[in-house]
């Protein structure tokens, strides 16, 4: 496979009900492409956590998935408030999610650590008041 495959999604920040749709769609596409279940699971869980984060912490954003010869790259890009202390945010259990988000099943402070755990590389670029961009790769 010489050429790359690219999937792009707008993630709606005003609609919690649809949060996660993009990741479900990517999972189906990767299945059709015949990737190993373990690779598919790692990519889709990492993307799902990032997608939910954009909805609950950043009023939505954009998700890009690029499938190339040796890796799958997931980029999540938002115009939200940014992350003041990335090191803190990466700790298991750290969450600023309010009670209404917790009652929906999110806010355990496990999302970013999960993203790191399931991917081979993860980079976070964030600027307060401007937004956050997270780039993750999973080697094939």
């Amino acid at each position: 496979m010489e050429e790359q495959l690219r999937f792009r999604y707008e993630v709606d920040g005003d609609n919690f009900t649809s949060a996660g749709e993009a990741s479900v769609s990517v999972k189906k596409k990767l299945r059709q492409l015949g990737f190993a279940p373990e690779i598919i699971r790692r990519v889709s869980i990492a993307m799902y956590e990032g997608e939910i984060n954009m909805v609950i912490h950043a009023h939505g954003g954009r998700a890009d998935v690029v499938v190339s010869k040796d890796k799958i790259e997931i980029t999540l890009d938002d115009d939200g408030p940014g992350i003041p202390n990335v090191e803190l945010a990466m700790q298991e259990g750290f969450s600023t999610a309010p009670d209404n988000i917790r009652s929906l099943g999110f806010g355990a402070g496990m999302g970013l650590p999960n993203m790191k755990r399931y991917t081979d590389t993860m980079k976070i670029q964030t600027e307060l008041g401007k937004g956050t961009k997270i780039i993750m790769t999973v080697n094939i």
Partner: protein
Amino acid sequence: MKIKEIAKLLDAQVLCGDEFLDNEVYSACGSDMMSDVLAFVKDQSILLTGLLNSQVIRTAEMMDMRCIVFVRNKRPCADVIELAKENGITILASPDRMYEACGRLYAAGLKGGCTSEK
């Protein structure tokens, strides 16, 4: 254990996915925090939860889980059931509380199988 045995143990009603009742499942996980489910589950095929939103279905789908048990007689709305159907997931509704439901399944030999990745 077959999904239909789980339904029987939990005195549960099948809300969708009858066609999968004969499928085998090997382990389960009970949680109301979706990121906890996503963190520690490996090859678990059943999710027990008290939450009712569409993220429960998507979380199960992300983990390749085949069956969701809603505890305490909670009933999801039609959209959530529809989403489960689309993804080939069986939904059971049990009158048990979370602790009892998990306990019954564990006692019957269905293990947790929780190992975190890497």
